[in-house]
C-alpha cells in the first residue's frame, strides 16, 4: 500500500485520541493491572496488610474442587449452548435459503431475541418453567414428570442452556444466511446436474463451504457462553441449586463481590483474562478465512 496522504498537524491527533485513551487507562488498564498485582498478594482478614505470595493464589484456586466444578459447568454449558444455538440457526437458515417467498418476513420474525437482554431471556424461560406457576412446568408435572429446576441441578442447567441458546439463535441465523448466500450457486447446480440429492449436496458441498462461517460463529458463541451469559445465571439460578450452574464468571463475581476473597478472585480474573486472550487471538487469526468464498 502506498503511504497515505495525511494532515501535518502535530498536536491535534493527540487531542483526538485523548478521550479514548483516558477512559482506557482509568477503567481498563489500571484495574487490570490491579487484578494482576492482587493475584500475587494475600491480604490479611482485615485488609490492613498484604504480603507477596507468588503463585500461591493460583495454586490454591486450581486445586479447589469448587473451581474444578466451575470449569466443568462452564465447559458443559458452553458446548451445549453453542451447539444448540448453532444447530437450530443452521437448520432455519438452510430452510430459508430453499424457499422463494417470505424470506424477509421470516428474517424479521426471527431476529427479535437479539434485542432481548440475556438476563431477561433467562427470566422469561424461568417464568414459563418455574414450578410455582409456569405453564410448561405445570404441563410437565401433569404428564407425570418430576420437574423442579429450583431444586434439581441438571434441570436447572437445561433451563439456562435453553434460555442462553434461544437468545443466540437470531445472531447465528443472520450469519448462516449470509454464509449460504456467499456460496457460488454454480457449484451446487453442478452437483445437482450430477444427480446429487438435496441431502447429499448439503453435507458434501454446502456444509464444508460454510466451515469458515461455522468456525467464526463457534468462537463468538463460546465467548458469548463464557461471558455474556452472566446475567442469565445471576437472574435465574444464582449458580445453584448447590453449585450446579456456577460458571467461571459467576464464581469470580461471587468470590470477589459477595464472599470478598480478594486474592482468589483476582487469580480467577487473571485466568479468565488468559482465556479471553486465547479466544481473541483465535478469532483474529482465523477470521481472514471467513471471507474466502465471499
Amino acid at each position, binding site marked *: 500500500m*502506498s503511504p497515505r496522504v495525511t494532515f501535518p498537524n502535530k498536536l491535534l491527533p493527540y487531542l483526538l485520541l485523548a478521550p*479514548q485513551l483516558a477512559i482506557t487507562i482509568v477503567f*481498563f488498564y489500571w*484495574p487490570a493491572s490491579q487484578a494482576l498485582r492482587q493475584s500475587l498478594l494475600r491480604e490479611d482478614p482485615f485488609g490492613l496488610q498484604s504480603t507477596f505470595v507468588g503463585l500461591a493464589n493460583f495454586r490454591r484456586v486450581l486445586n479447589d474442587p469448587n473451581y474444578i466444578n466451575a470449569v466443568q459447568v462452564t465447559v458443559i454449558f458452553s458446548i451445549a449452548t453453542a451447539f444448540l444455538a448453532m444447530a437450530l440457526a443452521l437448520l432455519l437458515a438452510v430452510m430459508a435459503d430453499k424457499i422463494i417467498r417470505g424470506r424477509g418476513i421470516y428474517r424479521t420474525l426471527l431476529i*427479535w431475541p*437479539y434485542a432481548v*437482554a440475556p438476563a431477561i431471556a433467562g427470566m422469561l424461560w424461568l417464568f414459563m418453567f418455574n414450578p410455582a406457576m409456569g405453564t410448561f412446568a405445570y404441563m410437565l408435572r401433569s404428564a407425570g414428570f418430576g420437574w423442579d429446576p429450583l431444586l434439581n441441578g441438571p434441570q436447572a442447567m437445561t433451563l439456562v442452556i435453553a434460555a442462553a441458546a434461544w437468545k443466540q439463535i437470531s445472531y447465528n441465523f443472520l450469519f448462516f444466511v449470509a454464509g449460504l448466500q456467499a456460496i457460488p450457486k454454480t457449484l451446487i447446480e453442478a452437483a445437482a446436474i450430477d444427480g446429487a440429492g438435496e441431502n447429499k449436496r448439503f453435507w458434501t458441498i454446502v456444509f464444508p463451504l460454510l466451515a469458515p462461517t461455522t468456525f467464526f460463529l463457534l468462537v*463468538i458463541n463460546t465467548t458469548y457462553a463464557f461471558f455474556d451469559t452472566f446475567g442469565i445465571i445471576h437472574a435465574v439460578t444464582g449458580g445453584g441449586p448447590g453449585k450446579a450452574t456456577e460458571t467461571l464468571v459467576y464464581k469470580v463475581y461471587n468470590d470477589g463481590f459477595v464472599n470478598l476473597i480478594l486474592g482468589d478472585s483476582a487469580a480467577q480474573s487473571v485466568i479468565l483474562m488468559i482465556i479471553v486472550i486465547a479466544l481473541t487471538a483465535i478469532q483474529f487469526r482465523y477470521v481472514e478465512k471467513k471471507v474466502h468464498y465471499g
Partner: protein
Amino acid sequence: MAEQATARPSGRTSTAAFLGRREEGAMLGISRTSRYVAHAILILGVLIVAFPIYYTFVASTHSLQTILRPPLPLLPGDRFWENYSTALFGGIGRIGGVDVGTLLFNTTAVALAIAIGKIVISILSAFAIVFFRFPLRMFFFWMIFITLMLPVEVRILPTYKVMVDLGLIDTYTGLTLPLMASATATLLFRQFFLTIPGELVEAARVDGAGPWRFFKDILLPLSKTNIAALFVILFIYGWTQYLWPLLVTNRNDMNTIVIALRKMISFADADTEWHLVMVTAMLAIVPPILVVLFMQRWFVKGLVETEK
C-alpha cells in the same frame, strides 16, 4: 457479497430477483414438497423464537390471580390498561416504590449515552490514527486494540474500587463513561477510513480544507451508513447491560430496567407481583426490539460486516 445479499429490506424482493430464485429453484430440483417442509420448519422456528415473548405479553394483561393458577390462558386478558398504568406510574413496592417510567428513562438515557459516546470517541480516535502521522501512533492503536481482551468480567473488583474512589457509584456518568471506550467501533471506523482514497484527502488539502473541515464535510457524510449500523448495535449493547449496572448502582431509582426486573422477582416468597413483573419485562423488551426492526437494514449490514 454477504452484505449485499442481506442488506435488502425485508419483504421486498424485486421481481427480477424473485424470478431468478424461481429458476434457480427449478434448476436445483428443490421440489414443491421440500419447500413446504421448509416453510413448516421455519414457522416452527418462529414459534419457538416468538413464543416466550408472546407468553410474557399475555401474562402482562392478566391479573395476579390468573397468573398464579396455571396453565395461563393463550389469549390476552382484560387488564392491559390497569397493569400497564400501575407499573408505569404507580411505583412498584419491591423496588422501593420506583415506577417503571423512571427505569425506562434511566435505561434509555444509558443506552443512548453509551451508543453516542462510543461512536464519537471511536470515530475521533480512528480519524487520528488513519489521517495523521505522529510518534507513538501504533503504540496507541495497540493500546486500544488490547482493550478487546479486558472485558469487565476479568476485572470486576478493581474496576469497582476505581468507581468508588472516583465517587461514581449511583451516577449516570458511572453507568456510561467506562463503557464508552470501544476497540470494536474504533477498529471498524479505522477499516472504513483506510478504504477512503488518498486523492480525496489531497484534493481537500489543495482546496485549503483543514483536518476539521475534512472530517465534517467529507468523512462524516461518507460514514453515515456505518454510524447508523453501529448505533443500532451499540444501543442494544447499552440497553442489555447487566453486570456493569449491577455493580455500580445501589439506589433503586438509579437502576436500569433489567436490574430492577431481577430485583422484583423472588421465587422464595409469595408476594412477587407477577403481573407487574410481566409488564416490566415487556417494557424492557419492546424498545430495543423496535429499534432492531425499524433499523433492520442497517442493523443486519452492520452486524454481518463488523462481526460483533
